[in-house]
């Protein structure tokens, strides 16, 4: 366990009800996982499953209600995050929305290090930005341009350069390629893979796209309505998915191969809206759900080899 970089235990985040009649929403419901140095944990799940909130709560950009976060063995759940912010960075989904349009690129990239007094002069700031821009495949002259002058893929590169400027050890990648076209998506995925190796980075990689997550993660966590349904190595999840929801996800992802696609069965099932207060959150849509699934909330069962599933049926 000496290699453990980040550990999250029983993380919970609840948002208040939006209407007087409504129920509070448990965006993150008792989530635990850990990430080793240089490794990547991928979080998949549909929109509203709590994966983004989990990512933000780990960095305390959203304060969790309860639970613990340990970074390099130190409890960072409470108190000042400033000593850790440098080492823990984030790349956002919307490249345009996360870059200040009124700042030139060099200012965006160097703002973090400047806040930590790592850069003394404007010259140093511009110099650092130029270096990082080259590293993410842009031109060093781009330092003086503004975010609006770049395409979506290029803006995402700037977002990555900004995260790198702090020389982090851990980066939360929140849907970094979801807004991009296929040809850019591959470029950014490759860059994240290269950077991970070069700088021994660890990622929490959040995406709704199981193919992308599968491609660059060591471990995968599958989330549904705020809870982790399954956690395990990529190999295990791909070859021996244990939770019915994981199996449904694997089945439903469209693969670019007509023969494979034709061999898979699909069915139209009617499923009710809404969430459940008791039992397994997936039981309303689950093909194997029974009476017993409505009782206790299923807890993680250890299937061995770091593979866990929250299904009581199998």
């Amino acid at each position, binding site marked *: 366990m000496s290699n453990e970089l980040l550990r999250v235990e029983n993380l919970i985040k609840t948002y208040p009800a939006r209407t007087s009649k409504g129920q509070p929403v448990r965006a993150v419901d008792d989530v635990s996982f850990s990430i080793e140095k240089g490794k990547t944990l991928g979080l998949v799940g*549909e929109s509203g499953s709590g994966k983004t909130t989990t990512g933000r709560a780990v960095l305390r950009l959203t304060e969790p209600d309860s639970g613990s976060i340990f970074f390099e063995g130190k409890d960072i759940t409470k108190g000042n995050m400033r000593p850790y912010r440098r080492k823990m960075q984030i790349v956002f989904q919307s490249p345009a929305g996360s870059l200040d349009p009124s700042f030139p690129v060099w200012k965006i990239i160097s703002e973090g290090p400047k806040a930590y007094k790592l850069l003394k002069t404007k010259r140093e700031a511009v110099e650092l930005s130029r270096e990082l821009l080259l590293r993410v495949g842009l031109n060093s002259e781009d330092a003086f341009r503004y975010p609006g002058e770049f395409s979506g893929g290029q803006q995402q590169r700037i977002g990555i350069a900004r995260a790198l400027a702090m020389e982090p050890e851990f980066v939360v990648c929140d849907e970094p390629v979801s807004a991009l076209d296929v040809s850019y998506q*591959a470029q950014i995925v*490759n860059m994240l893979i290269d950077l991970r190796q070069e700088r021994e980075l660890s990622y929490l990689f959040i995406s709704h796209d199981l193919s992308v997550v599968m*491609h660059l993660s060591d471990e995968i966590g599958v989330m549904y309505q705020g809870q982790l349904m399954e956690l395990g190595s990529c190999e295990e999840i791909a070859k021996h998915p244990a939770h019915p929801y994981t199996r449904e996800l694997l089945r*439903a*992802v469209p*693969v670019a191969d*007509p023969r494979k*696609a034709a061999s898979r069965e699909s069915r139209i099932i009617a*499923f009710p809206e809404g969430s459940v207060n008791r039992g397994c959150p997936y039981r309303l849509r689950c093909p194997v759900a029974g009476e017993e699934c409505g009782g206790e909330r299923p807890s993680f069962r250890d299937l061995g080899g770091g593979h866990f599933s929250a299904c009581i049926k199998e």
Partner: protein
Amino acid sequence: MSELLKVKNLSVQFPTDKGTVYAVKDFSLNLNPGEIMGIVGESGSGKSTAAYAIMDLLQGARVTAGEISFQGRDMLSMSGEEKRSLRGGQVGMIFQDPMGCLDPSVKIEGQMVEMLRQHSNVTKGEARKISTEMLRSVGITDPEGVMKGYQHQLSGGMRQRVMIAMMLSTQPKLLIADEPTTALDVTIQDQILELLTKTCRENHMAMLFITHNFGIVARICNRVSVMYGGMIVEEGLSEDIFYSPGHPYTRGLLEAIPDLEPGAGRRLKTISGTPNDPFAPPSGCVFAPRCPDCTGICKTEIPKRQDMGGGHGVWCHLARQEGRKGE
């Protein structure tokens, strides 16, 4: 089989302050009843513009050349009245964002009933009954409850189902689907795709499916046209496009998609470069600036369609040899 939809050499231009931009150039397709055809491309490739032109829903752009005919009738010369009766009746369209298509101030029931009564001679009671059944057939468990509500009370997946139910209720002969599942989760997407293909099969409805996702194309389409820079660069049966792609762009895209396998951090293949500046399109092949196989002729001459047989066409100067090699 007689063609349902025929588009020939369609060109669409956007007049802008900086000059005229070709959004679509020389676009042709034939669609038969019951057939599902995919148009794939990245953003800015012109795939949506082509679809909007067919529906005469273009805003700020105009068709400058070409022919569009539906069941042998020229759509470009139709009166507004005739077009309106086709749209929503025999020709339906579903969009990526159903929220923009449903009226926020009218209950779902009112919208569905109005839609049906516009296009067929039914009473309110009958229309209500058909609507309820349509909602049930798209997998909504409580159609009566949904009908009594407003669109903002529904989730994205439910809203898209309502939109589809509404569009299918008039039993269109052609459905144009513009990325209708992009905003949805894969499990719900899978169901909606199943529903659409089932309708095509059972009602002999034809569908033009616009997407950037090759996975969806593989799942539902009989035929595919690949677009880049406003032009079709390759067309053919799904089998041809996936198993013997003839255009370097198609090959590049297919290789850039991660498959559903543990990747262990392998690098993906990429297409280098960026899309063309619409104000300064290349004078030769649209893909030449990014093409790994680009030669002299590619920079100067626009490639013609190279026939690979069986309806498989490739707009590439090097297609003939390349395609054969791959087989």
